[in-house]
């Protein structure tokens, strides 16, 4: 996808300005600083690709940086290879390292991931020291400086670094805009929901870390060329990892400009202080970075870029925001043309062969607790099935089993006759099962369209097709008029409909709705119920878990009642709500006994 002029313009402007400034610098130390700013900006961008977009914070990016640096340095010393060749090799090795590191480490959660990432560069550091590479100096090549990237004028390095930065920015922008970036953001927001929407989270994370490692390796190699001296601490040390993290976080996480802003502000500051006060206060650099990190995390945890942007957005009058198609009165029209929920919809006559989902003898225990016991049920095509039961009856566990989040101890889940047990959630999404979750985690800063398009990637080959599918889904739930509004400004009802749209974008045949009506008032719930009824008429089979019985009894064709993990009874709403066993399950034995007048 070609980047638009609007996004290229700032990059070009920045490049020209920076080039102009750096060309005017004559002091060789400051020329070095100009280069280093760009080096750390690129390193920060590489960190951003993994950690900024996925939310998996890496404290060990120095591993890739150092691998790149040593590859380039040792490659030149021992094999007399040119950096023009070595830097791409460094990139490859960095990417490979990323892949090798990512594969086992992504299995770890939270703290353990962070600690493991911290351990890698430090471990490599010890090995490198043991191998005897305490200090590696690149030989000066006077005969052919160009071939060995050794220039007497520091500004040439700056230009090279600028070229690398532009390349990285363009690459990052491409990632951001494509499904790559969207998938990563979806993983950051809610990994479970992303899986359920059809995104193969492991594969995308591996791609991210490979790309991230490659860029870090390349810039690490360049760093070695610029400084001509490589020591284990300077490329594998904790400060190195910390710097990648700091410039990205300070400037702004999850955005192209963040690391650039961070580097432009912090590096000259640190270097200048180091130069001026470095002899009296050695280590002033580290103190500055430490203070920067602390102030950022306490005051503006997402970085300068977002803080400023949010601030500017708030001050702009709303009429200047993206135009929405509102009615002349200025009030968003109600969800168009949805017939209100009809009470007591006539029972549909469906031939029994049209069973789309069958569950046979499904069981799952946790420790001693039987969460789901030998549950069997059938979902008929185009039907709406309500799954109800008192607290702890196993309803959500059942959904998790159907959706691939949990593996059953026994039993089968058959879709069109094929047993789907053991498949991962994104595979089940591909097979046609969509799901909404009780706790929503939308991309607050992105539009409805961006939030929904993530669900379409499993179905669409191109990003354009994905957008079309997304818009179609948004139309089905009736949110077309506000498709460009930011999720942070939506009401609960609109958020629920957006969730529904995301699940619909993958064109599911079966929809599992988990407490979609929670938190809605009576009127709002009726509207959403109307949407669900319409979806069923259009041909989607629906299973819904819900506590608000008022709405459910008018919506569903039949109920399955679970109690203590087992099926208590099935049937139509009238019959179920008056059945003694069901009353007993909900209200207790004594009530049921007494109520039998």
């Amino acid at each position, binding site marked *: 996808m070609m980047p638009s002029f609007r996004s290229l313009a700032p990059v070009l402007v920045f490049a020209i300005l920076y080039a102009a400034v750096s060309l005017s610098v004559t002091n060789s130390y400051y020329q070095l600083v100009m280069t280093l700013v760009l080096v750390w900006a690129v390193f920060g961008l590489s960190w951003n690709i993994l950690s900024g977009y996925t939310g998996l914070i890496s404290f060990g990016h120095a591993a890739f940086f150092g691998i790149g640096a040593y590859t380039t340095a040792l490659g030149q010393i021992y094999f007399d290879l040119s950096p023009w060749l070595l830097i791409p090799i460094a990139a490859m090795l960095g990417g490979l390292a990323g892949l090798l590191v990512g594969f086992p480490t992504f299995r770890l959660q939270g703290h353990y991931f962070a600690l493991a990432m911290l351990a890698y560069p430090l471990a490599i550091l010890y090995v490198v020291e043991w191998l005897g590479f305490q200090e590696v100096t690149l030989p000066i090549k006077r005969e052919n400086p160009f071939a060995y990237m050794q220039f007497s004028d520091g500004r040439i390095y700056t230009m090279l670094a600028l070229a690398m930065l532009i390349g990285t920015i363009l690459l990052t922008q491409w990632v951001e805009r494509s499904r790559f970036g969207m998938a990563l953001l979806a993983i950051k927001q809610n990994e479970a929901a992303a899986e359920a929407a059809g995104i193969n989270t492991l594969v995308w994370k591996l791609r991210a870390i490979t790309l991230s490692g490659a860029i870090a390796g390349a810039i690490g190699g360049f760093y070695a060329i610029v400084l001509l001296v490589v020591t284990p601490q300077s490329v594998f040390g904790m400060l190195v990892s910390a710097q990648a993290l700091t410039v990205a976080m300070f400037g702004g996480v999850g955005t192209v400009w963040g690391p650039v802003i961070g580097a432009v502000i912090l590096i000259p500051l640190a270097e200048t202080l180091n130069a001026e006060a470095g002899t009296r206060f050695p280590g002033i650099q580290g103190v500055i970075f430490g203070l920067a990190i602390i102030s950022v995390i306490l005051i503006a945890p997402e970085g300068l870029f977002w803080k400023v942007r949010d601030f500017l957005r708030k001050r702009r009058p709303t009429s200047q925001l993206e135009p929405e198609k509102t009615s002349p009165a200025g009030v968003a029209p109600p969800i168009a043309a949805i017939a209100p929920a009809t009470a007591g919809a006539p029972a549909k006559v469906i031939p029994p062969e049209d069973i789309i989902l069958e569950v046979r003898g499904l069981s799952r225990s946790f420790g001693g607790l039987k969460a789901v016991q030998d549950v069997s049920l059938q979902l008929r095509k185009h039907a709406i099935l309500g799954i109800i039961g*008192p*607290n*702890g009856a196993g309803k959500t566990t059942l959904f998790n089993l159907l959706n691939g989040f949990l593996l059953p101890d026994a039993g089968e889940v058959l879709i069109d006759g094929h047993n789907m047990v053991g498949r991962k959630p994104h595979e089940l999404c591909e097979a046609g099962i969509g799901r909404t979750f009780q706790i*929503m985690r939308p991309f607050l800063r992105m539009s409805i369209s961006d939030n929904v398009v993530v669900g379409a990637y499993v179905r669409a080959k191109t990003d354009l097709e994905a957008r079309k599918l997304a818009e179609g889904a948004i139309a089905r739930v009736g949110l077309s008029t506000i498709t460009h509004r930011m999720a942070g400004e939506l009401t*609960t009802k609109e*958020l629920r409909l957006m969730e529904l749209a995301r699940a619909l974008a993958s064109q599911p045949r079966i929809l599992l709705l988990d*407490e979609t009506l*929670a*938190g809605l008032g009576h009127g709002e719930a009726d509207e959403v119920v109307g949407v669900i009824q319409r979806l069923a008429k259009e041909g989607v089979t629906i299973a819904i878990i819900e*506590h*608000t*019985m*008022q*709405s*459910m*009894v008018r919506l569903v064709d039949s109920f399955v009642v679970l109690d203590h993990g087992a099926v208590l009874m099935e049937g139509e*709403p*009238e019959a*179920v*709500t008056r059945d003694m066993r*069901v*009353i007993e399950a*909900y*209200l*207790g*034995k*004594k*009530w049921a*006994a*007494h*109520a039998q007048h």
Partner: protein
Amino acid sequence: MLSIDKLSAGYSAIPVLKDVSIKVEAGQFVAIVGPNGAGKTTLFKTISGTVRPSAGSITFEGADLLSIQPSRRAHLGIAHVPEGRQVFASLTVMENLEVGATTAAGQRNWKQNIERIFEWLPVLAERREQLAGTLSGGQQQMLSIGRGLASSPKLLMLDEPSMGLAPAIADFIFDRLIEIRRQSGLTILLVEQRVAEALESADHGYVLEAGRVVLEGNNQTLRADDRVRRAYLGM
């Protein structure tokens, strides 16, 4: 003793309690029933302070509860026996009870309290050195109640004590509760799904549905009202 006035509360974007008003007089046994998602547990969490309400007030013995830090509320005399028991699994039974007695009143009356707790709930005495995490569900529920009693409370709040327990064990715990009430005259606020059991011994009952109080009354009036069943089952 406890007065909840037009309380509204929820989680992030989702409102759960809407405009709820409930009164508990000293010495009363008040039951709150209602289907899942009605907001019963949220109500308790608001009283205990782990959820901040968006509107309304709570007064306990004349003091504005909402202005008091959550960890101080127990010291006022409110004991919360949480949903799902929530015992300190890695501490022994005795240690759980000792932590329950963190309040000043609990410390003062420790000797008498522990005697009575062991008398009412003998299984706790038998297993006092056992790790709480290894107890059965019913035993943990009794420990949770004992822990609440150890604080020498004025108000005992129980959140769905029968949840996840076999009916026979739930019945047993209820009997113990009634016995404790009879002997101590404690004020009790009970949230339960088993309506009849809850209303049987209660002086007053409230029916919560979709975050609002839809019915209130005493045992007789509520028992005869089909609206209670409809609150749970929708029709």
